[in-house]
């Protein structure tokens, strides 16, 4: 099983990114929590539809579970269509997010947790590094 965690940087010590479509990096781990891959998000600067494009990218990577801060409606629809499970509510570092998942502290979502364009506004705790709105 492949788990993708939204993060601001590469590695377990990086802070999680509250955004999905415009998050900086994904840390991919297996079900034992072993790191498989760190990838930067190619859709970070998309002019529109970043959520859809990022979801497509994650699906193409063969991911089964996404751990996110929040998720928008189009990204969720795309991930759901591929039977990718989305858990929201991560906080702290990538390592923290992983243990929150393993301890079953996250929420499995079927409805989007934020409205569209959330990531353009800097994304809550995710820092103000997103596109200017």
């Amino acid at each position, binding site marked *: 099983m492949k788990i993708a965690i939204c993060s601001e940087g590469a590695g377990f010590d990086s802070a999680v990114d509250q955004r999905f479509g415009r998050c900086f990096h994904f840390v991919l781990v297996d079900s034992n929590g072993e790191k498989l891959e760190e990838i930067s998000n190619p859709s970070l600067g998309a002019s529109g*539809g970043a959520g859809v494009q990022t979801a497509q990218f994650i699906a193409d990577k063969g991911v089964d579970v996404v751990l996110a801060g929040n998720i928008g409606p189009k990204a969720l629809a795309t991930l759901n269509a591929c039977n990718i499970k989305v858990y929201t509510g991560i906080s702290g570092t990538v390592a923290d997010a992983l243990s929150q998942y393993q301890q079953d502290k996250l929420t499995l979502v079927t409805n989007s947790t934020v409205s569209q364009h959330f990531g353009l506004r800097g994304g809550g705790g995710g820092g103000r590094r997103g596109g200017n709105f």
Partner: protein
Amino acid sequence: MIIAVASGKGGTGKTTVSVNLALAFNQKEKLQFIDCDVEEPNAHIFVKPVFDSPETVSIPVPEINEGKCTYCGRCKEICVYNALAVLKENVLVFPELCHGCGGCAYFCPQEAIAEVPRGIGVMEKGTAKGSAFDIDFLHGRLTPGEAMSPPLINAVKNEIDSRKVAIIDAPPGTSCPVVAAVKESDFCLLVTEPTPFGLNDLDLAVQMLKKLDIPAGVIINRSDIGTNCVEDYCKQEGIPVLMHIPWDRELAELYAKGEAVVLHSAKWRDLFEKIWMRIFEVFDSEQLKTEKKEVDAG
């Protein structure tokens, strides 16, 4: 002849100028008024046309024939707006992201994409008749929440009758909707106010018109406030200032009631008739310039 009324800055008086200009036009039955500010059309409040039933304006969006689709992903590669997601055994279409370019259907190797219309707003046509005018009136109304107005603006502009004089009331700004509204005009009136804010946005509008190769004239509204900055700028740029509109209680009171001042005041009617003369003068001299250029080039 197509005359656009535009401005960089919002709230400078585009609608006031365009509706009064339309209602002061002295050749009955020869005028079309086209409100291209489809996000907030409001010229009809002053012109008071009687509308026919609205027509829906649509853009083409993709519909996937899953029987033919091989999930090759060509369509999502083509789509720069990310309106398509191609998954293992599923294609998702997000119509609200689609700009209606048709690229996905054109490039689909399986011909598995049909284009179906999605309504983005309506066009309304009508006529406004008075003792001194008889105007063909058209406007578009974009559905609130829709992101793209240019397809609706283009649909409304397709109704322009080349045998008539058309006045286009453009949206404010200098981006896609404004370009869609003013392009192919013969002349553009830029309405501004003599303040640093007005000048800043006027300059942006002038630069846009230069790129579109449309001759311009300036109308300075609220001309008794601010500074000489706009006058100086127009001199420097060689753009004629066609009219000054000072603060005027009568104009403001009528505006507040949704009435056009030229229908109630001979003084204002004369002023707007004079703008028509100035427009034709500038237009003729631009025509001469173009002809001279062509002769010189030949």
